[in-house]
């Protein structure tokens, strides 16, 4: 971890009490924070040179009923990468937008809304970005079953079961 | 009698032109170490397109294609093929070149009439390229006309008994050949028909018989351009010798086009107005000074 990243981490550690910082890689730090501190941390990091929001994505923890929003920031000065992540409730997922800090977030948030159903206050442009005429629950949620959807929407080719051929393959006479 | 000659000229243009295009494709294939299609492939392509059920975009689309084919056929009848001359003293160089423009304008109008933006971009490029290669060509031709004191192609052809213009005016012949490449629309100068950028330019909306008629027009226009070059610069003796020279010039053009990549459109105009134009004026200066070998 480079020296400048150390200062930033110390600053955040002093300012925010209940935040867990782990160093996941050579120049990479992961910060788990509560929902209310995320915006503060992000703005500090932005001023400290982490100007590039390289990714904003969402992870579906279905067992403990939570979504995890992950912000990956990258700094061109010292090549360091900081991952800020927070947990939001899965039933009615709602979070505040970072569109004002990074304009690109507008599209990330739109995609997350489309594929996970997370609402972002302040970003009203929630039109579908990638899917056309989608009529089911957001597809990347773990409780969505793609095979069943595919069978419902896209009829398949019926293959007759050729028992003899299968037996021969099983016995290893033909290589199928 | 004249009708018979016109028919002979048109059928030569048709049969000989299409076979030469097939041979050209075979030569390009061999340059790329490929086997290449049979020599009669272009006949099959032509008749196949004519049998399909085409799609049209209104009367101006049809009228443009007809005007293009009619214009180029009319130009072909005025071009002397060796000693086969349909209209002996009416084949004026300016008449042939500007009657050729009827075909070009007809095609341009028809293709833009289809309403496809690719076609308009292609036609704009084609007209710009025409501005590029037409100027040096006309300057060299006016030098030839001034030297021989006549603008009839057959008269110039017969006056080359003692030596081809290729050797009398070598610089002019080179410039004319470079402009010929531009006219043919072969590879280094096929920006208007660039398949990768503008989906084969003006031909984007051509289906079925329109594509066939325009392939026919393309064959006739190639035939007109090369036979003009052969008549003015290579003497073009009797009919068979003329066809032999025609084939040689065509093969050279195909070889060059098999190798060179495509120019960008402003590079085409800049190139034509730098090198060939200055050479053309040099050649005209030689003619004025009377230094004709």
């Amino acid at each position, binding site marked *: 971890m480079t020296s400048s990243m150390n200062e930033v981490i110390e600053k955040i550690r002093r300012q925010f009490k209940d935040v867990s910082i782990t160093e996941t890689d050579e120049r990479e730090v992961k910060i788990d924070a509560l929902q209310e501190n995320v915006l503060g941390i992000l703005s500090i990091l932005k001023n400290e040179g982490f100007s590039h929001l390289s990714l904003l994505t969402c992870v579906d923890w279905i067992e403990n009923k939570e979504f995890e929003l992950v912000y990956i920031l990258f700094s061109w000065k010292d090549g360091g990468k900081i991952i800020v992540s927070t947990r939001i409730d899965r039933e009615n997922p709602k979070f505040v937008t970072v569109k004002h800090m990074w304009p690109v977030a507008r599209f990330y948030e739109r995609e997350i809304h489309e594929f996970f159903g997370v609402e972002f206050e302040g970003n009203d442009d929630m039109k579908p970005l990638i899917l056309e005429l989608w009529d089911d629950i957001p597809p990347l949620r773990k409780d969505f079953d793609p095979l069943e959807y595919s069978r419902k929407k896209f009829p398949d080719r019926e293959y007759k079961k050729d028992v003899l051929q299968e037996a021969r393959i099983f016995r290893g006479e033909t290589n199928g | 009698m004249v009708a018979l000659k016109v028919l002979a000229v048109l059928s030569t243009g048709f049969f000989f032109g299409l076979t030469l295009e097939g041979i050209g494709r075979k030569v390009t294939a061999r340059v790329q170490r490929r086997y290449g299609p049979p020599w009669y492939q272009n006949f099959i392509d032509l008749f196949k397109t004519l049998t399909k059920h*085409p799609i049209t975009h209104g009367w101006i689309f049809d009228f443009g294609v007809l005007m293009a084919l009619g214009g180029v056929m*009319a130009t072909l009848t005025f071009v002397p093929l060796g000693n086969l001359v349909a209209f002996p003293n009416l084949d*004026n160089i300016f008449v042939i070149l500007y009657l050729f423009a009827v075909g070009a304008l007809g095609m341009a109008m028809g293709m833009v009439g289809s309403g496809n933006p690719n076609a308009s971009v292609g036609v704009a490029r084609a007209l710009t390229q025409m501005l590029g290669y037409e*100027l040096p060509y006309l*300057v060299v031709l006016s030098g030839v*006309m001034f030297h021989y004191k006549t603008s009839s192609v057959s008269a110039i052809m017969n006056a080359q008994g003692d030596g081809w213009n290729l050797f009398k005016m070598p610089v002019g012949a080179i410039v004319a050949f470079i402009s010929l490449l531009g006219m043919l629309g072969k590879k280094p100068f096929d920006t208007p028909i660039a398949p990768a950028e503008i989906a084969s330019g003006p031909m984007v909306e051509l289906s079925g*018989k329109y594509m066939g008629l325009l392939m026919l027009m393309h064959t006739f226009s190639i035939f007109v351009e090369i036979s003009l070059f052969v008549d003015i610069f290579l003497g073009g003796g009797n009919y068979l010798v003329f066809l032999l020279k025609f084939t040689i010039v065509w093969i050279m053009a195909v070889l060059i086009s098999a190798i060179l990549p495509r120019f960008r459109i402003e590079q085409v105009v800049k190139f034509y107005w730098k090198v060939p134009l200055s050479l053309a004026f040099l050649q005209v200066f030689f003619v004025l000074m009377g230094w004709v070998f």
Partner: protein
Amino acid sequence: MNDLILVLMFGSLASYALSKIKKNIGSWFNFFVLLYVSYMIYKTGVGTEEKFFSFIPGFESVLSLTHLGKFFALVSFLIITTVSLFIPVWIEKKIKMAASFNLLYLLMSAGILGALASGDMLTFYVFWEIMVLASLLIVPMGKEESRKAAVIYVVLSSIGSYMYLYATFLTWERYHTLKFSEIAQGLLSEPSNGFKWLVVFLVAAAGIAKSGLFPLHTWLRITHGNAPDTFSAVLSGQLIKMGAYILAVSLGVFPSLKMFPPLYGGVPAVNYVLIAFGAVSIVLGTFMAIRQNDMKMLIAYSSVANSGYIIIGLATLDSVGFAGGLFHVFNHAVAAAMIFLSFAAVVYRTGTTKIDEMGGLIHRMPWTFITYLVGIISLAGIPPTSGFISKWMIFQALVRKGMFLTAAITFVGSVGSFLYVFRPLAGVFLGQLRSKYKDVKEAPTFMLISMIFLVLLTLYFGVFPGGLLGGIVKVQKELGIPPIQFEGTVIKTPLGQWDTFTVFTMFAVGFIIALILYFLFPKPRKVDLTDQYTAGEYLYTPDLYHYATGFYRFIERLYDRHPSFEKLYEMFSRFFKDIGEGVDTWFYRASSSAYMFWITFVMLIIFWVRW
């Protein structure tokens, strides 16, 4: 001849009164008067001398129609009458001051007729001023910028007119006569070369200004662009030809061939200066026309280029070149009138002249499209129409005389004309139909009649140029130039010959063969305009898929920083304005005593110098 002029003069007053009742009655009256006058011109013989006025002692002005004048008069009145057939329908919707429009229209044609029929320089100048004044007052009736255009138009053409006036005084002071023929004799025996150069140039200056040649061409873009639509047809089709008439006079009537030793290729040095102007205006007109986005300004620049052709044709002064120049006068008059009338019809329906705001109008206005198409085929000089014959003659003359640089520039002009005539064709008529103009209707019938008449005229003279060539031969005999040989439809020149009728029949044969092939094979399926191949995407907004803005952007980029003469002349005008203001502030005091002081001061100067 002067009774015709009087008919036109009083006709203009009558049409003013009639238009007060109802606008188009005046225009219909105009049309019938002009029809009568053109018929009478066709009827009048050549060479009859009639007195006009003689209040200056020792001089009486005379009207005598020469072959040259008659040729130009017939061409001019052909255009004026056809356009006057176009006006009645157009005038209702378009003009605030319709009555004065009709009045000035007839007044201008009276000026034109008088100028063409005048036998001496002073009467010519009088009618010239009437014509300029009348057209000056019509121009500001157009768009909002047309007032500025009218000012520029009048300033530039007055430069030419005053130089012409100065030439009149010079010749009067030297030869005490003003008749063209007598001045020609005088000039022949004139010892001092400088005087001959001066007279020819001063007379030619009026032609250069009026036909928009190189140094004085800046008024063309603004005036054509903003004048009322039908008037720009007359302005470009006919008024520019008055400039060509004066150039023909300064070259043919004052026989520059006999006055000056030939410099190169049998053409004297004076003509070379005019040819240089013509060549520059061809290059300038062509390359500026390719850039324009306003269709009327585009054709205005093409008029600059075509005036260049006319002066080059006339200045070669050999049998083929001079005939080519005169024939091109007719061709450009008819072609420009056709194109501007079709533009007037388009503006009458759509209301805008910007090319990239329109598109696909062919599907709603097919007849206007056909007129425009034949117009540009003739303007670009392509065989079946008459446009090609004149350009062919000019090429033959230039190549035979060995003037290669001028020939190269004319080639640039002719191939460049394919480019700029195609821009409005693709931008306005073809391509995608704009949603705004979905319900545009075809132009009214009378407009179509006048347009189709010009189309038939061009095609007729394209195939049978005999009638026009006969007139040109008479003019050439009168000016002592060896006439052009032609018999039937074969035009012979020392360099080569061709037959317009065979070219037309061969084109027809080719077209019929193509038609047979077309009907031999399966019937096509009609698809509407938005069903295009656009790489798999659907076409909902046709406006996005119309390629018209920056049509030749890739060439325009090569000469974006081109020198602009309009800015140059504007700089001059600002310079003079500043001087004017300076003088104004120093000398002008509101008080009367200052006036008295300056008047006495000037009087003293005059008496002291003993003028």
